[in-house]
């Protein structure tokens, strides 16, 4: 069965500092991987996705993620965070059709300090 682990429940970062959110997955085949962001009381917005090819993928809002098969990881990074980045971030793994039955991690709550 597929699973996603986000080891950090909360992360606090100063505005302007760099950010890395960790994600480890378990999946029997080549995974389709996603990062979503959720503001309070809102739905999920796709930040970026990995389907195949270049293991470093660029997303919206200045985010990027790197797929490392050997480590079963798909960590999200941003070189300089803004106060508006404060939100809940979810890593997800999909099935053979990409968006099939996504399995989500429990999320990482990002707090931005002024």
């Amino acid at each position, binding site marked *: 069965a597929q699973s996603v682990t986000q080891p950090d429940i909360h992360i606090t970062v100063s505005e302007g500092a760099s950010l890395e959110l960790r994600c480890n997955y378990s999946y029997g085949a080549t995974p389709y991987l996603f990062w979503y962001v959720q503001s309070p009381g809102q739905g999920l*917005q796709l930040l970026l996705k990995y389907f195949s090819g270049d293991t470093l993928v660029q997303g919206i809002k200045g985010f990027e993620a790197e797929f490392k098969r050997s480590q079963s990881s798909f960590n999200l990074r941003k070189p300089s965070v803004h106060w508006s980045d404060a939100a809940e971030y979810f890593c997800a793994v999909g099935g*053979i059709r990409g968006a099939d*039955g996504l399995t989500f991690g429990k999320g990482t709550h990002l707090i931005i300090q002024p």
Partner: protein
Amino acid sequence: DAGVTQSPTHLIKTRGQQVTLRCSPKSGHDTVSWYQQALGQGPQFIFQYYEEEERQRGNFPDRFSGHQFPNYSSELNVNALLLGDSALYLCASSFASPGEAFFGQGTRLTVV
């Protein structure tokens, strides 16, 4: 493009009642998935509909059922509501393979 739209936005029901939630997919999308997100948790996959058939199902009881219409819109029905069914219910639509899922704003269901 209106994106994925869900109705209603909020709903309060009594334990034992039945509820129907609705979802209109993003224009051009033919696949609809439903997720349950309990407070402080990640979304959990309920089921997915494609060509008016349930294509895939997560680990949810039969009290959770759905339907997809010819225009690709979808309904989620929950019977015999339990207090534990209180959650944000998210609808996502997608197209093609591999596809990415676009989510609606969700329906907040409170069971009292």
